[in-house]
């Protein structure tokens, strides 16, 4: 990273997301604060249902498919370069999605239109990002991008339909789809989950390369802590719709402050043995404990934990949302 004080590119403040359900509003995000600087990779980790994917989708405000009335209510603030996105008009949001914040989802296998050629799908993204781009130039750029993401025969791949490519190749195409826009922020939502383990590593390496070359910021969403150390600078750990700990990768991995982070890390095969393993399952968002949501599973729970926990700062810039953080 360059410069003394990295500039904050994307700033999320007190973000709350709730879905209307039959059992009343379901709070999926509960007051999220998150900053991402230019050129920074932040890993967002947590169990399924912790709200990490919802946070990624909330940032681009794609919580339900187009033409469907969403039941989601989003409040708080999402600023890109200081511009508020929560209240931005629809056309402005489309421009942000097209140019500034790209998203790669985990649906590599079904995320591409089955009846459209690969080249046309990428060219479409290029033209959405730059309406002045001619169709021919967009096609050429698409082909070059396919070469850049490592497809063996980019000219053929551009003419292919998705079913003609393997899963790993399709995920490379998804990355090409995002990278061709030269976005400032890439939200990668479990981009390797659907792939074979042998392919995962190569796609991750490609993702890391693309990030370093372009200098884009990245929010890397995963439940797999094992890959975080290779790709991210900072980690944010989510639990029950809150970020319960943030810090640099080195800090959080060697000295987790929140008992939940410690439990996650102890579940890694290469983890030191001294942290207690996690017991119990993910919380029911309809019936959260009144104070700390992790309290029912926490070995360090005390009386104070029935009150909402404070966000405590630590040396080195880490923060933990906990009454009695580990030391």
């Amino acid at each position, binding site marked *: 990273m360059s410069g003394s004080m990295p500039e904050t590119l994307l700033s999320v403040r007190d973000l709350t997301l709730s879905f209307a359900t039959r059992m009343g509003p379901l709070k999926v995000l509960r007051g999220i604060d998150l900053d991402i600087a230019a050129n920074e990779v932040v890993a967002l980790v947590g169990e399924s249902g912790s709200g990490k994917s919802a946070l990624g989708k909330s940032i681009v405000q794609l919580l339900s498919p187009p033409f469907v009335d969403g039941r989601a209510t989003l409040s708080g603030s999402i600023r890109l370069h200081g511009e508020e996105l929560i209240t931005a008009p629809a056309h402005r949001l*489309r421009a942000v999605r097209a140019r500034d914040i790209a998203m790669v989802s985990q649906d590599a296998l*079904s995320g591409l239109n089955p009846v459209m050629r690969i080249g046309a799908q990428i060219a479409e993204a290029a033209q959405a990002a730059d309406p002045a781009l001619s169709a021919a130039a967009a096609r050429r750029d698409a082909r070059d991008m396919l070469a850049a993401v490592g497809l063996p025969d980019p000219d053929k791949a551009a003419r292919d339909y998705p079913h003609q490519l393997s899963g790993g190749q399709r995920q490379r195409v998804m990355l090409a789809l995002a990278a061709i826009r030269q976005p400032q922020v890439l939200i990668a939502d479990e981009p390797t989950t659907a792939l074979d383990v042998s392919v995962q590593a190569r796609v991750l390496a490609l993702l890391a390369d693309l990030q370093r070359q372009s200098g884009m910021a990245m929010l890397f969403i995963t439940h797999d802590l094992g890959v975080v150390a290779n790709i991210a600078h900072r980690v944010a750990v989510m639990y029950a719709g809150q970020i319960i700990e943030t810090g640099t990768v080195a800090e959080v991995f060697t000295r987790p402050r929140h008992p939940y982070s410690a439990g996650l890390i102890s579940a890694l095969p290469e983890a030191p043995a001294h942290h207690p393993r996690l017991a119990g399952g993910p919380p029911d968002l309809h019936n959260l404990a009144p104070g700390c949501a992790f309290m029912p599973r926490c070995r360090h729970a005390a009386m104070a934990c029935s009150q909402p926990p404070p966000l405590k700062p630590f040396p080195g810039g880490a923060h933990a949302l906990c009454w009695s953080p580990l030391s």
Partner: protein
Amino acid sequence: MLRFMSWRFLRAQVTMLFVLVVAFLTVRLSGEPFDTMFPEGLTQETAQALRHRWNLDLPIWEQFTLYLGKMLTGDFGRSLFTHEPVWQMYAERMPATLAVGSLALIIAISLGIPIGALSALRRGAVTERMLMGVAFLGYAVPHFVFGIGLILLFGYYLRLLPASGLSSPQHYILPVLTLAIPMVAGIARFMRAAMLDTIGQPYVMTAASKGLGNGRIARRHVLRNAMVPLVTVLGLEIAGLINGSVFVEAVFSLPGVGRVLVSSVENRDFTVLQFGVVAYAGLVVLINLVIDLLYTLIDPRVRVGG
């Protein structure tokens, strides 16, 4: 691709052979053809001679091979009543049926697809609910009820439109509407379901995350994918149209092939009936072949796969 099509073609031929057998047998199951063809009270010798003359004294399987051979060489026989060549009887009536049928089809496609697509894109709106309610009704009511209803309303009470024959352009309106309305409803209902299914697919989210406008997402990503299953349904609808045309031609007294078929049943004119059954079945088989071919054009997965 070539293998796929030749396999389909082979299957179509097997189907047709089956149809020929069934047509041949069912017509004969309804009674001895001889009794239909010739007056009662003939002498034993005359009857025997006539039987021999018409090959009716041969075992039934030999009669069948003779009939099959004639069918394959384009000799479809003559009507037992008018003695016209069967082929010519149908060919003369073809234009009326084709005109009414294709008009109905054009109306059904050009109304059904947009109604279904729009109601999916504006789900929950009041107009959408009304459209789908009407579509359900149109889908549920059979042709002959519709046709008679339209005749009563426009031909009898309001006296706005002619209800029988095809002698002027106005004559086309009621029969074409009768055929088209259930198809519009069927196509719209299916199109809506296919669109809703497609909207929920991950690639539509991908398209939205590219920052595309809703119009472009609808046209390039939703509509094209929703059209793939619609092609199959169009095949079924056209087969339904062929059935419906028989009713509609009877109800509106149209000079079409359906009338020839119906009167051949009434007259037990079995050469005419036999050919009619085979020709209608052949048409459905042909449509299926065309649909399979269309599939390979629309869906790239079929193009390379089979």
